[in-house]
C-alpha cells in the first residue's frame, strides 16, 4: 500500500487540476477578504465609492465585529460547502482517470488485494485535504495581515480542534466520492455528485422536506450539516459529535468502496 501511495503522490504533484482547484479556493478567499475590507474599513469604503459599488455593499453590509480568523475561514470556504465541492471534484477526477486511462490494469495486475488500492486512495485524499486546509487557512491568516488585521486571530487550540474535525469530515466526503467513482467509473457522475452533495444542495432540499414532518434534525448527522454546524471550539463531549459522525462515514464509505471494487471486473 505504501507503494500505491508513493505512486498517487507522484501523480498528484504533477496533476494540473490540483493547482487549478487550489487557485480557485485562493481567489475565492481573496475576493471575500476584499469585500469584507471594503465594508469594514474607511479606506475600503472610499475605494468602494470610487468603484461605484458602495451602495450595494452597504445594503449587504457585514459586521465583522464578532468575527475571528477561523470564523472568516469557515464563512468563506467551509460552511457554504465550497471546499467540500471543490475537493470532491478533484478526488473524482483523480480517481476516475485511473479507470479512463486504463492504467488501473497495470496497478491491479500487481496489487490483487483490491482493498489496498481503495484504502490508498482514501489516504491520498486525506493527505490532499490536509494540505488544502492548512494552506488555505495559512492564506487566510496572510490576507488578514495584508488587509490590516481585519479580524482578531483565533486561538491555536480552537483552530486545531476545528481544522482536525473539518479534515476528518472532508476525508470522509472524499471516501464517498471514491465509492461513487468505483461504482460508476464516470468522472461526470463524480463531479455532479460532488456539486450536489458537497455544495449541500440535496441536503438543503431534503431538510426543507423533512422539516414538514419535524424530522429535519436527523440531517444534522450528515457530513454536510456536521461541517456546517460544527463547533469552532471544544465545549464538552457534545462538541465531539462531528468527529463521531465523520469517523463513522469514513469507515462506512471506505468499506463500501472496497466491496464495490472487489466485486467488479477491471
Amino acid at each position: 500500500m505504501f507503494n500505491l501511495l508513493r505512486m498517487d503522490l507522484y501523480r498528484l504533484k504533477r496533476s494540473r487540476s490540483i493547482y487549478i482547484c487550489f487557485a480557485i479556493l485562493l481567489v475565492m478567499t481573496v475576493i471575500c477578504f476584499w469585500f469584507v475590507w471594503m465594508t469594514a474599513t474607511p479606506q475600503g469604503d472610499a475605494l468602494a465609492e470610487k468603484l461605484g459599488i458602495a451602495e450595494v455593499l452597504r445594503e449587504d453590509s457585514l459586521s465583522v465585529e464578532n468575527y475571528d480568523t477561523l470564523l472568516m475561514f469557515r464563512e468563506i470556504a467551509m460552511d457554504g460547502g465550497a471546499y467540500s465541492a471543490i475537493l470532491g471534484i478533484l478526488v473524482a477526477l483523480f480517481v476516475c482517470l485511473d479507470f479512463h486511462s486504463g492504467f488501473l490494469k497495470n496497478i491491479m495486475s500487481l496489487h490483487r488485494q483490491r482493498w489496498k488500492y481503495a484504502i490508498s486512495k482514501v489516504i491520498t485524499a486525506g493527505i490532499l485535504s490536509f494540505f488544502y486546509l492548512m494552506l488555505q487557512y495559512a492564506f487566510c491568516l496572510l490576507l488578514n495581515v495584508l488587509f490590516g488585521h481585519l479580524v482578531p486571530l483565533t486561538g491555536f487550540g480552537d483552530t486545531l480542534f476545528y481544522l482536525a474535525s473539518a479534515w476528518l469530515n472532508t476525508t470522509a466526503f472524499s471516501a464517498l466520492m471514491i465509492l461513487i467513482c468505483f461504482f460508476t467509473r464516470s468522472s461526470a457522475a463524480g463531479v455532479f455528485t460532488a456539486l450536489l452533495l458537497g455544495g449541500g444542495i440535496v441536503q438543503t432540499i431534503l431538510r426543507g422536506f423533512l422539516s414538514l414532518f419535524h424530522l429535519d434534525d436527523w440531517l444534522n448527522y450528515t457530513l454536510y450539516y456536521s461541517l456546517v454546524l460544527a463547533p469552532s471550539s471544544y465545549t464538552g463531549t457534545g462538541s465531539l459529535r462531528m468527529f463521531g459522525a465523520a469517523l463513522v462515514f469514513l469507515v462506512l464509505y471506505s468499506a463500501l468502496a472496497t466491496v464495490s471494487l472487489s466485486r467488479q471486473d477491471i
Partner: protein
Amino acid sequence: MNNKETFAVETVALTKLYKGKAAVNHLNLKVREGAIYGFIGRNGAGKSTTLKMLCGLVKPAEGEIRLFGKPVQDPFVARRIGCLIESAGLYPKMTARQNMIMKARCMGLSDEKSVDLILERTGLSDTGNKPTKLFSMGMKQRLGVALALLGNPDLLILDEPINGLDPEGVREIRQLILSLNEEGKTFLISSHILGELSKISTHYGIIKDGNLVDQISRQELEKSCTDYYQIEVDDVKRSLPLIMEHIGGSQTEVQDSHTIRIYGLAEGAALNRLLVENQIQVYASGFHHMDLEEYFLARMDGSHIGDSQNGKKEGEKNV
C-alpha cells in the same frame, strides 16, 4: 509428459460466466516455461477474458490458476508477470518516462535506471516531454510493452501487442520478443495477425466459444499441416467421382464450386491428365502447405486435421 515439470501458466477448469453464459469454459491451459505461446481465437472467443483472469483483472467463476506452480493469489507471483491487456493503459498528460515511473513506484522500484533502459530497448527514449496523448497508436503499444517489461518479469502476457504498429514497429516488437525469449522469458501472446504469430510462437492454443479446442507445439503443427493438392476445375460434380476413383484412400475436401483439395496425394500430373481426358477444364492445380491461418480456420470449422496421426483430444494435450 513429465509430471514434475513446472508450467509458467497452468489453469484447471478455468471458467468465467457473464450473465449465466460461459465466456470461458473449463479451460485447461498449460504454457511451458520458456515458450512463446500464441493464443488464437476469433473475436469474443474468450482470449482477452482468459488473459484478464491470469492478470487478476477478472475474477473466475470457478477453476484454478497456477503461475510458476504457485497459486495466482501469491503476491510474489504477481511480480513475476508483466501484462499488456487490450490497450496500453497510459495517463494521457504524462510523458512516457513519467508513466513508467508511475508503474515503477507502484511496484516499489526505487531505481529509475531500469526505466531508461527499457525505454531505450523499446525505442521510446527520445520521446522527451511529449505527453502520451500525442503518441501514435504504435508508440502507445510500444510503451505498453515497456510497462509490461518493468521489473524484469519472467512471464509476459500480451494481448494484441502488435495492434496498430507499422511494419517496422512489428519487426521491432518481434525481435524484442525473440531476444527476451532467448533470455528465458515466457510469453503468452494473443493476436489476430496469425502470420506474425507463426513467425515467433513455439506453441499454440486455439480457443473457440470459450473452449480450448487445441494446444499444439510448432513441430506438431508442422506435422499436422500436411501438404495438399489443390485443383480448380470447371465442374466439381463431374470431377469428384473421377478424383475419388483415381486417388483411392486419400481424403478430398470441396472448398467451393470450382476448388477441390486432396490430402495425401503424391503426384498430381496423372490426375490432371485424367480430368482433361474426361473433358473437364483444369484452371489451376498445385501442391500447397497449410499454414497457421488455414490450420486455425480448419479447427474453427471443427475439422481435426492430423488428429488421427497424433491421437489428440480437445483441450487435454500439454505442449
